[in-house]
Structure formats: structure tokens, C-alpha cells
């Protein structure tokens, strides 16, 4: 049901400024004294000394998961590159030579670049990965750097990043 919001009558109480000002002072002073004696209402975090743990779903910097043997889980299918609305992922696919122990996997990323400066942290790449090879569960955010190339992360760096629990492996149960 619609109802009409209140508009105060403008009687002497309001018109004389003083009582309402005093009431307002009451609010600010309440906060003042609560904060001086106990600091209970402050929400500010004194970063970097204090840090709020990021929630598990926090979409941070990317990482590439590893297979049990340390090779990249990624098979360079380019789904993430396709799904990325910011076009920040660049992959060059390559083929394992026939004598390679992982020859049965056939394909792997020779190059895998993520321009974290272009990334909009939407997480579509993680969703688009059919192998659980790319994740954003690192709990890290891009750090300030001195030059743009420093935030263009390449394959081995991405592979070396672990999730918040230090895990570098994947939930993908496939052995192949």
C-alpha cells in the first residue's frame, strides 16, 4: 500500500534552530564518545597492518593450475580467451613432441599471457575453462608496479601462484 512520508510541522521547536541542533549534536557526540572510549564504531581497516581476509569467492589475480607432474593443466583450448570481455588473455598453443611424456595430451600453451591491467575481474574466464586450468582464487590483487609490462603475467608466473591454501593443483579429476 502506498503511504505518504512524513513532513515535520514547522513549529517553534524546529523553527528556532536550537533544539534540533542540540539533538544533532547529541548524535555526533554519542559517536564521538563511543569512539574515544572504546572505538567501537570505526570500520576503517588500517591496511596494510590490518587485513580483512578475502572471502573464498573473491576474484583476485589469476593462476594456472598444475597437473600432478607440474605441467600446466591448461590445454590451450582458448575458451578463456574467447570468453574474456576485456580481451586480456593471449595464448599461443603448441604441440607436445611425440617422445614427450605428455605426448598423449597433445596440446599445451607455449605462451599464456594475462594482462592484469586490462582484466576487469569478471571471472568469466574461470567459468569458461573446461579443464579447471585457470582460477582466480589466489586471494591476491594486482600490486602497484613501476611499469605496465610488470602486470602482464606470463605462463610460468601464473603457474607458480597458489591459491590461498597454498594449493597449486586442480579439482579436475581427469588424468589425461
Amino acid at each position, binding site marked *: 500500500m502506498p503511504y505518504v512520508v512524513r513532513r515535520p510541522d514547522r513549529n517553534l521547536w524546529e523553527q528556532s534552530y536550537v533544539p534540533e541542533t542540540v539533538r544533532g549534536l547529541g548524535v555526533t557526540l554519542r559517536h564521538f564518545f563511543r569512539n574515544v572510549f572504546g572505538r567501537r564504531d570505526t570500520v576503517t581497516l588500517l591496511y596494510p597492518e590490518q587485513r580483512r581476509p578475502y572471502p573464498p569467492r573473491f576474484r583476485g589475480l589469476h593462476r594456472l593450475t598444475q597437473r600432478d607432474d607440474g605441467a600446466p593443466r591448461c*590445454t*590451450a*583450448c582458448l575458451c578463456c580467451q*574467447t570468453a574474456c570481455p576485456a580481451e586480456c588473455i593471449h595464448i599461443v598453443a*603448441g604441440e607436445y613432441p611425440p617422445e614427450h611424456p605428455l*605426448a598423449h595430451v*597433445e596440446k599445451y600453451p607455449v605462451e599464456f599471457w594475462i594482462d592484469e591491467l586490462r582484466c576487469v575481474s569478471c571471472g568469466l574466464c574461470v567459468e569458461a575453462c573446461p579443464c579447471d586450468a585457470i582460477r582466480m582464487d589466489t586471494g591476491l590483487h594486482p600490486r602497484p608496479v613501476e611499469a605496465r609490462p610488470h602486470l602482464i603475467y606470463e605462463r610460468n608466473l601464473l603457474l607458480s601462484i597458489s591459491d590461498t591454501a597454498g594449493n597449486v593443483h586442480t579439482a579436475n579429476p581427469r588424468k589425461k
Partner: protein
Amino acid sequence: MRKLTIDGREIEVAEGTTVIAAARALGIDIPHFCWHPELSVAANCRMCLVEVEKQPKLQPSCQLEAADGMVVHTDTPKVREARRAMMEYLLLNHPVDCPICDQAGECKLQDYYMLYDLKASRLWSEEGKVRKRKRAIFGPHVIYDAERCVMCTRCVRFCAEVVRDPVLIEVHRGDHSEIAVAPGRTLDHAYSLMTAHVCPVGALTSRDFRFQCRVWFLASTPTICPGCATGCNAFLDHHRGEAFRLRPRENPALNRSWLCDDGVLAFRLHNDHRLTAPELGRGDDARPVAWDEALAEAATLLRKVPKTQRAAVLSAEHSCEENWALAAFAREALGVERFFVTGRTAGTADDLLRHADKNPNRAGVRSMLGAEPEPLERLVDEATAGSIRGAVALGAAAATQGPAAAAGLLRLEALVSIAPRRGPLPEAAHVRLPSPSFAETAGTYVNARGQAQEFPQAMSPRGEALEVPDLLARLARRLDLGLPFRSAADVRAAVAPRLPRPAAEGGAP
């Protein structure tokens, strides 16, 4: 003529037409793996089953000849269930390979799964799947993955019926059946890449294209194969200025649905050895320069040579428009009277598609010049003799090669080369001016049969390359000479009446 009804729509087709072809004529797409309009009917994939009234069982529409009064339904619950079951069956032993499979994105299994199945797997483990050969190298261009194969035998029939070289065979039975190369052979005939092209799934893939680019990134532009004088119709697949492959474009009158291996790989003419900036100097003295400097140098060099000792080299590799522009420039502005022609050297031919002349536009050059151009050897001879001292040359390839030819060209005092890529002619030139590749310009080729075929521009010119008419206009301005054309439209208008009768059917896209 046979009159039948498909999904409530009547159609009259010639005797012997199959239901699937009749439906296609109506615009009804019946899913199929093994059927190909150019190949014989195998009817082994069972994807094209349709319901025909008064027939208790579903019928394979690829094999079913249209008959008078036949009433066909292509989308009944029974048909849908059959297709779903067929898809489940085909995917039963299929490996989880989409991430590494090049076919993903143009795979019939993917398309039909989305259209007709969409159900979850009932096979919860990969362990039960039949394991077969993977990554079997069939030939120089083709690689085979037996696990992905749906045994449609299109490739087998293609080799046997079109190429008439039955190099591929079926081996084993049931779950374990797969395609193999006949003992003692490799898949090395001149049309081997067409087996990968007809393969509806990712079983046969091109070794050249393997892992280069995902197909969903590719943009396709209709083009004419620049590989030989047959002038096969094709699509050029490209992405971000890079070409990746040519695919056949159906033209029943010319190349039907096929393209030879050389044709498929002719895209490399666009990618490799490109000249992207104007250059001055020969050999070790070569250095890239700005357009102004290159054109000034070209003008200075050409001015030194008297009119009678100037020549122009046309190119059978290049379009009519480019050749006409050069011919007009040379004749009207430079006063050249001697015209020569260059191009790639001749190669093998066969009775299917391949032509011995490996240049797409030799007939076009003749039409544009209005006379037979002299062969390049004569230029070499005259240069050696000193009677021709300067030339403007289009194209990279030299039709004559060898040390004598090279030495002859080096005797020229002014050789201005206009070429999209490096080659013997540009290497011998004093000034190299980059022009667009076949994919970067629109134009017309006239094939050996005299059919003129236009093709559109697929990409914008790479680097600093300039369209030939544009480039010549700038050069003419440097030389303070007038030109008979002012715009690309002028060139097209001048070229059109000189073209032979266009191809009767399907020639021009």
C-alpha cells in the same frame, strides 16, 4: 519428375533425387554425417532418419529416393528420439577432446548435440570407453585421431571416387573399426587436405592448421584461389591480419566442392616473406625508408633512363586491376613500349583441378595489355645487352631464374619493383615498393578458361603497403606526369570492358 511433400510443403524434383537433397532444396536441413552431395551414398551414420507416411520404420533420407506422393516428416517425436539416440551412440566412445581438438567450433557432433540431444551422459566413467589410435600421421598434410572418428567414410569415398586413388580404407569391425592408410601407402596425393575438409568431426585434421587458431575466431571472405590458373573458388579464413587457410567454395561449374593441397596452402602467399615498408638498395645495402624518399628515388632513377630504354613488367600473379594500372601508367606516363610478363614458374597439372600455370591471371594480363606481353627472358637478354636500362616491375616472382637471369636483372640501371613480398624481382630492384597481397585488395582474375572472377578485399593492407593504383598515382606525381585514372572506380571502369565474358555460372561471388 517426382512430386512429394516434406513437412507439409510440396516439391517437385527430378527422378533419382534423394529425399535429403529434396529437403535441402526446400531449405530443410536434415542432419547427416556420411552424406555428401558430391559423393556416393553410404547411409551408415543413420543421422538422417526421417519418418515417411505408410512406412512403419524410419528411413535414411540420404538413401531414400523421392517418389510421387511420398509424405515425409523430418521433425516428429519419433525422428527426434532417433536422432537423440544416434547422438548418444556416437558420443558413447568419443573422447573428451574438445579442448584439444581443432574441429571444435565447426564440428558436426557439437552442432547436432546442441540441436538434437542436450542430455547428460549416462556413462559416468571414461574408463569404459573404447581406446583407439590417436595422433596417427596419415600423410604430409593430414593427421588422424581414431577415437574421434564416427566412421562416416566420407574420406574413404572421397579418395576412391574423386581422386581415384583409394589410399584410405576401413579396418576392423564394430567398436574397433577405424580408418587406415592402405598398407605401404601414405596419404600423399595432391588432394589429401580435402579428406580433412570432408571429415565432419575432428578425426582428420590438417597438420598445417593444427593448433594455429581456433575456428570460431576466423573470419571468412570469399576469394579466388591464387595458386594456379584454374581459379578455384574458395573462402579465405583469417584472423587479425593473418591468413590461416583456404577452404573450397562450392562452384559446380568449376571446382565443385574441392580444392587441391597447394590451393589450401596458398594462403601462405599472404603471410610469408612480406614486404611491409618501402626499401632502397640491393643486397646488403637494403634499408627501409619512408614513402616519400622511396618515391623520390624511384622518380630520379626512372628519369635518368630515356623513354625508349624503359620497360614495364606485368605480373600474372596479380589482378587485372593492378596490371591494367601499371600498363596504363607505363604507357601513358612513362612512354614505355616494351611490356614483359612475370609470374611463378610452371608446375604439375592433373585432370581434376590443378593447372600447370601456377599463376591465377595470365589470361587477364593479356586482356589488360591488349597484346601478348613478352616473356621475362627477353627482358633479361636485353638488359644484359644494354638496350633496356630501366623498368617498373610488378610482382615478386621471376619467371626465369638462375644466375644468368639474376645477373641480367642486376645490369638494369633503374629497377623499381612493386611487390607484396620478397622474391627474385624485388631483390634485384633499386627501389622496392610494398603492395597489398591477394587477400588485401579486391580485384579480378581471368582463369585459363577465360572466366573472369571478381573477389573482394579480405583484410586491410599490412604495414605501409599501398594499393597499386594509389602507389602509381603518387609515383606519377613525383615524376610530374599525368595518369589516365584518378580513383579505384576509374580503374574498375577501365578494366571491365577489357575482361572476357564472365564465367557462365557461379564465377563471380
